[in-house]
């Protein structure tokens, strides 16, 4: 009786399954070492085509030679032995993406690693390598990405579709800027992709927890190839991340993608290239390490509405050694991106956090990516800070300074103090405008330097209730009206009165 039930069940499961003979191209493994397999046969294999091994592992063909193929194994290579059959799949490396990938942590081949089961819903196959959108399909950048970090939004503004490099030594706050930016994208109509390359699993876990607590996982995907993952997966992770981003861009959405970090990515690529016996170049990196990053970053763009709209904003991160931004990989990536945010250890230890060196940092998009209100208040700020820095060294020598110099110094010190910001506390753009308005209109020149931070949090709170018109105008229309301006002036004076008591 049991047997019949089981048989009936099996018949139902199989449905109208029909077995047929298969015709496949196979090769044989000649050599296996360090995550790289050399296989014979497979004469028709295309570049970056996926192959499978008997132990279930998947590989990607990267070296096509006469008589053999060099394959990097995406996963555990220890179960592969010499003589094993290698089958080609006919597909160029691609991954399954769907809407339900948001909120998940996946690896470089889009398999979930957060223990929450497979990705539900309809999945589309997106190629990992794709030619960047052409010139005609693009549109110039004019919408802001609000990072919530005053120093960046005011002085080095980032636009949707821009590539802005975050560069600095270790422990200078590069990832902190990235995480704060993601946290501030709540309600900004942005999907975020955080690509972790070669990172400690503990660091990634901390970031994921922080994003989850901040409610950011509702619009964020994490693609991870940790330090213990094979170099092949670390090499593919950024491309997998941008493929996920392209899936959402093709729906007309705006996406923010962060590559943390590309230095480890270049190292992983160097490892694979050397194992594939490609000749080493400068610093032992292969000759095409520039192309490695340029083809990745060119896929970040803003598309015009004729081609579907949407944008991908890229924030690659590079770690420098001893502040040397003229090393090989940093200079490569600096020349590819549309600007850089330069973080310095000296500033960090002086207490200026975020440790942004405003002088060396650049945004080639600039004020086109700022709302009008921000442009008005922050327009002269960069110049003021530059003048301040020049005079700062000067001021240590003499106490007899003329009025103009003293004024510049006082204003500069207040500016530096105001631009400091604690971690995980992104500031909404309307509040930034309030604070910078007070600064650049000279309304806080008479507040003591050590009380500036207190004043700042106070005025922001006070303005929430007393300057509603101004805030809503800036938030909705991007610029204040005359009434709004009068209101905020009044509110600031009022609060100063309260504060000084």
């Amino acid at each position, binding site marked *: 009786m049991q047997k019949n039930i089981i048989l009936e069940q099996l018949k139902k*499961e199989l449905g109208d*399954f029909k*077995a047929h*003979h*298969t*015709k*496949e191209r*196979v090769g044989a493994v000649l050599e296996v070492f360090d995550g790289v397999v050399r296989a014979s046969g497979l*004469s028709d294999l295309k570049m970056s085509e996926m192959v499978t091994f008997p132990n279930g592992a998947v590989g990607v063909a990267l070296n096509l030679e006469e008589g053999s193929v060099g394959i990097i194994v995406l996963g555990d290579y220890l179960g592969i032995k010499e003589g094993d059959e290698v089958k080609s799949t006919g597909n160029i490396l691609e991954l399954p993406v769907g809407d339900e990938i948001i909120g998940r942590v996946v690896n470089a081949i889009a398999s979930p690693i957060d223990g929450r089961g497979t990705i539900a819903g309809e999945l589309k196959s997106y190629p990992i390598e794709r030619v960047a959108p052409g010139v005609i399909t693009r549109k110039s950048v004019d919408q802001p990405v609000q990072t919530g970090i005053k120093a960046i939004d005011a002085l080095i503004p980032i636009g949707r579709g821009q590539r802005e490099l975050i560069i600095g030594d270790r422990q200078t706050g590069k990832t902190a800027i990235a995480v704060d930016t993601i946290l501030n994208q709540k309600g900004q109509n942005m999907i975020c992709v955080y690509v972790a390359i070669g990172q400690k699993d503990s660091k990634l876990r901390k970031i994921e927890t922080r994003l989850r607590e901040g409610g950011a996982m509702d619009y964020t995907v994490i693609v991870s190839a940790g330090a213990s993952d094979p170099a092949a997966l670390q090499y593919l992770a950024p491309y997998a991340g941008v493929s996920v981003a392209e899936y959402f861009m093709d729906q007309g959405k705006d996406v923010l993608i962060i590559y943390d970090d590309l230095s480890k990515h270049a190292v992983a690529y160097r490892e694979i290239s050397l194992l594939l016996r490609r000749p080493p170049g400068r610093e032992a990196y292969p000759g095409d390490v520039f192309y490695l990053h340029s083809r990745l970053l060119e896929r970040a763009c803003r598309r015009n509405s004729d081609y579907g709209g949407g944008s991908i904003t890229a924030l690659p991160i590079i770690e420098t050694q001893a502040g040397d931004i003229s090393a090989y990989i940093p200079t490569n990536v600096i020349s590819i991106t549309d600007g850089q945010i330069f973080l310095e250890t000296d500033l960090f230890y002086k207490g200026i956090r975020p440790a942004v060196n405003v002088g060396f940092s650049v945004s080639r998009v600039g004020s086109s990516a700022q709302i009008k209100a921000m442009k008005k208040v922050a327009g002269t700020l960069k110049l003021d800070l530059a003048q301040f820095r020049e005079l700062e060294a000067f001021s240590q020598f003499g106490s007899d300074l003329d009025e103009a110099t003293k004024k510049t110094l006082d204003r500069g010190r207040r500016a530096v103090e105001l631009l400091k910001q604690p971690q995980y506390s992104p500031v909404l753009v309307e509040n930034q405008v309030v604070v910078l308005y007070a600064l650049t209109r000279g309304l806080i020149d008479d507040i003591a330097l050590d009380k500036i931070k207190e004043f700042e949090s106070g005025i922001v709170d006070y303005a929430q209730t007393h300057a509603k018109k101004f805030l809503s105008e800036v938030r909705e229309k991007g610029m204040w009206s005359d009434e709004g301006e009068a209101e905020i002036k009044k509110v600031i004076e009022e609060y100063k009165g309260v504060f000084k008591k």
Partner: protein
Amino acid sequence: MKKITPTTLAELLFTETHEKSEAESQKIVKSFVALLAKKRMLEKGNLVVEAYRQLIQQEKGIVEVTATVHEHMSTHTKDTVTTILKKELHAKDILINEKIDHSILGGIKIKYGDIVIDSTLLGRLKQMKATLFK
């Protein structure tokens, strides 16, 4: 500089001895061996012979095929396979190397070059397993 592989050497020997008389071929082979000795590639001799054999087969339109079966093929089966493959591969003749493997449970697996046609019972069972586990 391109690497000298056994295949390249075999191609060289093949082109040189192509349509030459027996006596001439003997002389050419002698100088070929001398060349191998000079290049210190004598130990690759076996590989060169294998590659040369494959080139001859290619020229004659003979395709060498490995057929893995559960038990010995009858003459009838062999002939049917040969006819089908001749048509499929546009070959003048098929040389079948029979291999017995009980693990395939039945059917036939044909391998030529780097192409494998799997029509074994084991293969079909694996497909069924994949469908059930989806």
